[in-house]
């Protein structure tokens, strides 16, 4: 194991996030997103149709029903545009000491998770993702739900590789002050 060093580094010389090459997600994840949207739209349409035809005819004014349909129609269009455009902006970059994930078409965000703050890593697969042979990598830090990073649309192989890499990094960090135990493990 390398001896621990902590050299002073000129801040302006630090690797800049903005010069990174980002990895896009698997192309077929777009299809997954669209399918999920379609399913959601169908369910809401069914509910709205049910509501319009059966139960509430007398209780809820016609104005409100029309309003809901118009709102839902606009929302659906917006949803599909956002899904397709948003997909192109989802990408990630792996660095030596952290993982960066960015997303968003109009409202953009970019999260960075340093490996020495990662609590644990998991891989998830929803039913549709499984059909398309895709996986989602989830990285948990102590920063709370809002800060947990979730990278969808990875091939299971990539997801596993990323996970192994991150877990190895986090274990290294943990064991840094306990060099002796690291030696024991190598035997």
């Amino acid at each position, binding site marked *: 194991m390398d001896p621990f060093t902590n050299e002073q580094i000129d801040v302006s010389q*630090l690797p800049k996030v903005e010069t990174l090459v980002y990895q896009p997600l698997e192309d077929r994840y777009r299809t997954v997103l669209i399918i999920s949207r379609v399913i959601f739209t169908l369910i809401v349409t069914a509910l709205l149709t049910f509501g319009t035809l059966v139960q509430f005819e007398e209780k809820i004014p016609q104005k409100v029903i029309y309003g809901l349909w118009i709102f839902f129609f606009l929302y659906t269009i917006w949803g599909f545009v956002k899904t397709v455009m948003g997909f192109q902006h989802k990408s990630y970059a792996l660095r030596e000491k952290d993982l960066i994930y960015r997303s968003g078409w109009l409202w953009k965000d970019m999260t960075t998770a340093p490996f020495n*703050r990662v609590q644990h890593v998991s891989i998830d*697969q929803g039913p549709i993702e499984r059909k398309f042979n895709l996986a989602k990598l989830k990285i948990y830090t*102590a920063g*709370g739900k809002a800060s947990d990073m979730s990278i969808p649309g990875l091939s299971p192989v990539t997801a596993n590789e990323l996970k192994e890499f991150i877990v190895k990094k986090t274990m290294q960090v943990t064991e840094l002050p306990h060099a002796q135990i690291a030696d024991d493990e190598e035997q």
Partner: protein
Amino acid sequence: MMKSSNGAYDFTIPRRQSYAAILLIAYKLYKVLLRQLLPFLLIFLFGGSLGKKDSLMYYVIGIAILGFIYSVVSFFKYYFFFRDDKLIVQKGVFKRSVIEIPFDRIQSINFEQNLIHRIFNVVKLNMDTAGSAGSELQINALDHTLASAISEHILKHKSENAVATEEGQPITESKKQVIFRLPIAQLLKVGITENHLRSGGIIIFFLIWIWENLKDIGMDVMEKMEEYAPLAEAISTSLVIIASLVILFMIVSFIISLVRTVLKYYGLQMFRIGDGFVIESGLFNKREHAAKDHKIQLVRWTQNLLQKWSSIYELRMKQASSMEVSDKKSIQVAGLEWEDIKMTEAYLFKEQHRELSAMNLHSVDPYYRFRRLYYWSVIFLPLAGLLVYLGENKFAIAAFAWFCFGVVTTLLSYNKKRYGISENLLLLKGGTFGHSATMLQLFKLQNLMIESTPFQRRRDLASLTLFTASGQVTIPDIAYDKCLLMKNYLLYKIESNSESWM
């Protein structure tokens, strides 16, 4: 169970929980379902139309059976085992997921037993990983001996790595040193300067809640009121009575918050013990809170308008916890003076506290005001218009008043927003009518996020959010270049640091 002849367990083989887990999963599921569906059930039961009650019975039975099937499936899909000093759990009925937790990350292991556990002689294993909410791990039901073996195995690994003992252990009394005491006169000052609007709000919500619940079970308060029609008429016609009701309401709110404060902060003392703080207070219900310096992630003082006039402060120190950050996990002290705040900072940040006063403070971009005003107007002005269209003039006025309130608070909060970053610390000042400041040590940050809206990008701005283990801090609307520079600096601070953040 897989148990070799000498009594040792082989944890590398994936194994399931004890069969009692099926009942426990089902029990938990039913509890959640019942809580969610209770209002509907009540409405069904009390809402007349007796004919529907039979079909309701079928629904209940159907959901119960589905829930039980779900529990059985989830039991058979749940495996756990050890590999490479990690605990690995595979689970999921619809979604398959694998969770890996290195032993080093497990902060503590607790056993828990409710009635069902006791009947089957099993325990529930809680593992606190100091991660975010929901990332702590639970194994619903395990034989007692197996659970002890697992706990021993993990703790043995951890003790080799020499992990610090848990907080809350009584530390030797001899080093206990009082650093702050709240005298009675000051206590009254704290009570008087409380945010009385808050207790007023609580009263209003309580009354609305009672009203709605009475309505749900078929007792319409309005109908009852009509029996006293002459009285109601008198009230609605007499402005004097309304005014006196408002004054009465204000007095009641004031008294409630005063009493609450006195009960809570009576005999408040803050101690310094070793490398931590202990707070003691309460009249009938004496409570004691402890916080070690290294567990404290965020420090925040606030001063509302009344407190500003009487120059006292409230201080909160938030500790890391795997649960959502609740008030229980944060230490709260009231009635402090400026010197007390400075002293606490000096204890907590050691020499680094000097950086606070030497810090260059920057304001955020003026665009911050407009962005917030856009949001306020996009939501509330059309709402007011819609309400006028629907003929609800009173509500329209309320919506418009809220909009004006939003405008005022936006302008005020822009004027007070300042941020600064030094070698080791970050300071964010704010407030609307009063003042507030949030401080944190840079190496205690967990991760960072840069966000930007299309409108911000047109002006080359972005917002930076910093996450700690006990809450987040956002610096809104700063120049994009500056934002990146700060992000890189903070990441460098986090990644080059080997000190334990808790």
